[in-house]
């Protein structure tokens, strides 16, 4: 404001006094200069206003961007929450399915036991008649121990730190029930028990068998990573590094990949 106001005051003061032609010409020149200056100032002002306008537009756009960015973040958060909730629901459903599968296995076993004790009637005989066989041979035909009990006893031993007993129990379980849903778990726990005992070469072999025999098991990433850790623990660095890189490459989204990357960084090896 001040820059626009002062030149105008000066102009009126000069016009108000007596003046020669030369003075008038000088004054005209000065007026022309001042007009030019004024025009320049007006241009500057216009430019400033424009800048202000632009600034305001930028501010508005930035606000809009921020708003839409916040909406996006919020949507991503919501999606993440939904994914987590879905994950939670899947976990709960899987849990229920597992429990039902266990109950089914138990029912099946009970039925087998019942079937072994009660043989069906011979063809042609009245349907109400049943033949109860002698107890001796039948008992020997029935498995002596429920496989789930064998698994649970082995797991109990593992939890108590009785690793030798746990290994032996899990091996018995796999022999008895090689096709059980728990067979891959049993194989993994044997490897983990050997790892706990710091028997790393044996643990490597066992984790290998988890991967080769149960390639679709959810224990595979863990088995692969533990195999890598086992190599590192016996100072077979190169093998260990290759193994950890394999985990990152094959199971990039598993928690084990993050652990492998961390260990590789500690070993001075960067991963993507």
């Amino acid at each position, binding site marked *: 404001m001040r820059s626009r106001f002062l030149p105008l005051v000066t102009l009126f003061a000069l016009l108000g006094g007596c003046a020669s032609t030369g003075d008038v010409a000088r004054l005209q020149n000065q007026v022309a200069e001042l007009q030019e200056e004024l025009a320049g100032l007006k241009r500057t002002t216009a430019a400033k206003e424009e800048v202000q306008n632009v600034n305001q537009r930028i501010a508005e756009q930035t606000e809009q961007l921020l708003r839409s960015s916040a909406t996006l973040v919020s949507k991503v958060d919501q999606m*993440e*929450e939904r994914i*987590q*909730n879905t*994950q*939670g629901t899947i*976990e*709960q459903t899987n*849990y*229920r399915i*597992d*429990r039902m599968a266990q109950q089914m296995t138990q029912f099946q076993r009970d039925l087998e036991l019942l079937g072994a004790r009660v043989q069906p009637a011979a063809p042609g005989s009245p349907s109400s008649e049943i033949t109860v066989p002698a107890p001796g041979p039948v008992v020997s035909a029935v498995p002596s121990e429920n496989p789930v009990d064998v698994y*649970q006893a082995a*797991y*109990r031993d*593992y*939890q*108590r*730190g009785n690793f030798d007993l746990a290994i032996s129990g899990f091996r018995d379980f796999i022999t008895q029930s090689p096709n059980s849903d728990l067979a891959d778990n049993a194989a*993994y726990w044997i490897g*983990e028990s050997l790892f*706990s005992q710091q028997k790393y070469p044996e643990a490597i072999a066992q984790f290998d068998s988890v991967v080769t025999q149960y390639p679709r098991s959810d*224990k595979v*990433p*863990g088995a692969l*990573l*533990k195999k890598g*850790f086992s190599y590192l623990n016996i100072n077979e660095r190169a093998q260990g590094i290759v193994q950890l890189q394999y985990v990152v490459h094959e199971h990039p989204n598993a*928690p*084990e990949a*993050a*652990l492998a990357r*961390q260990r590789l960084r500690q070993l001075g090896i960067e991963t993507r």
Partner: protein
Amino acid sequence: MKKILAVLSFALPALLSAQTDVTVTIDPSQASQIVRIAVPFPDSVPKTAGATVAASEEIREPFFAPLTRDLAYSDAFAIAPLPPGIAPTIEVAKRAGAHYLLKINVFREGPDYLVDPELLDMTGASVLKPQRYRSPRAALTRTAHTIANNILRIVRGTPGIFMTRIAFASNRTGNWEIWLMDWDGANQTQITNHGVISILPSWAPDNERMVYTSWLKGTSDMWIINRRGGGRIRLHTGLNLNTSATFSPVNNDIAFVGSTNGNPDIYLINDAGGNIRRLTSTGSIESTPEWSPNGRQISFTSGRSGTPQIYVMDAEGTNVRRISFEGDWNDDATWSPDGERIAYTSRVRGRFQIRIHNTVTGETRIVAGEGSNEQPSWSPDGRWITFQSNRGGKWQIYRMRADGTDLLPLTSQGENKEPDWSKKLE
């Protein structure tokens, strides 16, 4: 549960003044193994020549009451009721159905108390190695716990939990500080005096050290301290949060919650503050790690499935699996000493309760009662659980059997939280 609490609250003062009237819940399957022991009050024992017998009111509260309580709650002994006004001889004890008679003489010598316990079987033979216990009045309760422990070891061949201690946080001085108490709430002792918030104590497996969280230097840090309050060490992690620390039962690792960029995760550090390792890396909040007793598993709470749930992973961070499936808020998991059970806090119909998960069978059950009941911690023999509850209006620490019976309030001054039972039987 409510009834048991009410009964115990009213019965306790009475049983302290009675001779042997301690009522406890006994598992019927163990009833045949229970050894009945007669414990006459020391005053009724004939005097020994040349000694000053301690007055009964001096020793009833700090010595006799905790001794009889220990024996009665041991799951090994039942107190055989002796008829009043009759000298407690072997014959009298035998008629009361006792297998043992515990005769105790307590003498005064200057400021010290001398305690001579004698455990007799029903033939009159002494089965306890003669030993005199000398202690000032303040240590009489510890003497009672020591004698109970020795008797249990002689009769059952196993150590008792009477010498174990419970660490906790209390604000009774105006600040949250770390305190210790005996298993029955006796001998409450202040361990830290920082004048700032100090919380979440957790015992080392040797019962000698604890790790806790304190704002002593203005930020949340983990500190290690010995059971007498000395030898304080700060664990530098370079991370934020630094809380919920817990010692490995098998090596010098400590699991804790640290955060970078505001996201809490589970980390390991050794007890000298070195070798930091990150175990979880999700975008969700991970907290409350706790080691399994074999040192090979770590339980923790994670929000990765939308609500806080209990997960277990191998000690290397691998093989993560969820173990809680009921309730929309589960936290504070802690393992029983045999690794077979995990107790945790679970929100049930708007209130927090203690839920126990069987790691072998996968079954769960709820064991708490009124108010909110949180932060369980197992006794080192796996028979008892201590926890915090606001059932009386303020947060206080309670003790109960793992099946929820024999509830006992352990604290009453100020507010008291986050109990952690020492790990080793002594």
